[in-house]
């Protein structure tokens, strides 16, 4: 049983560019959440997707957007990248009706130069 997978593992961009990160949830899971983990800090909740809609959002600007596909996989898009967007981006999946336990992927490390 494959766990949560994310791609790419590492990414380097320059300021002003746009980036798309991808996540495939654990088999059987229907809910995907995204987190940003800056160096030396705990993960910060960005948003959560369920039934292809954004259900909850943390304190992140509109530059951060997402999408969930019918197969439950998800994308995180960040526009107009800033140096401060450099971080580890984590995807977590869960089963909506089965409790709240989230299973995390290995993350995508984004460096903005």
């Amino acid at each position, binding site marked *: 049983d494959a766990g*949560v997978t994310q791609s790419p593992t590492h990414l380097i961009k320059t300021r002003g560019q746009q980036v798309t990160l991808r996540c495939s949830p654990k088999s059987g899971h229907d*809910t995907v*959440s995204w*987190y940003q983990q800056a160096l030396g*800090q*705990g*993960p*910060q*909740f960005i948003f*959560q997707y369920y039934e292809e809609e954004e*259900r*909850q959002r*943390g304190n992140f600007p509109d530059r951060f957007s997402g999408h969930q596909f019918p197969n439950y996989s998800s994308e995180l898009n960040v526009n107009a990248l800033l140096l401060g967007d450099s971080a580890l981006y*984590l995807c*977590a999946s*869960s089963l*909506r009706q089965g*409790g*709240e*336990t*989230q*299973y*995390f*992927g*290995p*993350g995508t490390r984004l460096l903005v130069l």
Partner: protein
Amino acid sequence: AQSVTQLDSHVSVSEGTPVLLRCNYSSSYSPSLFWYVQHPNKGLQLLLKYTSAATLVKGINGFEAEFKKSETSFHLTKPSAHMSDAAEYFCVAQNTGGFKTIFGAGTRLFVKA
């Protein structure tokens, strides 16, 4: 408002001695509480979860945590530390349905030989 406070940013113990990582939470309702561990360059791994059943929760690798509502605490313990326990530990609170997740800032555990 919901918040999670990990009282120690760093904890250092000798191998074979007990581990105590402290976590307090603040919430207007009874959240689900979790402890996750993050080893360097690896994803977040669930250690244990509390969801209003037994107040003493046993997790993997010999860890356990006790939920104390009167103290709003959810401290993580282990009777005997192992070198492989050295990692970053996160206390996490989540509202019903998993709509929003709050991570503590993390506690770095060092284990000395």
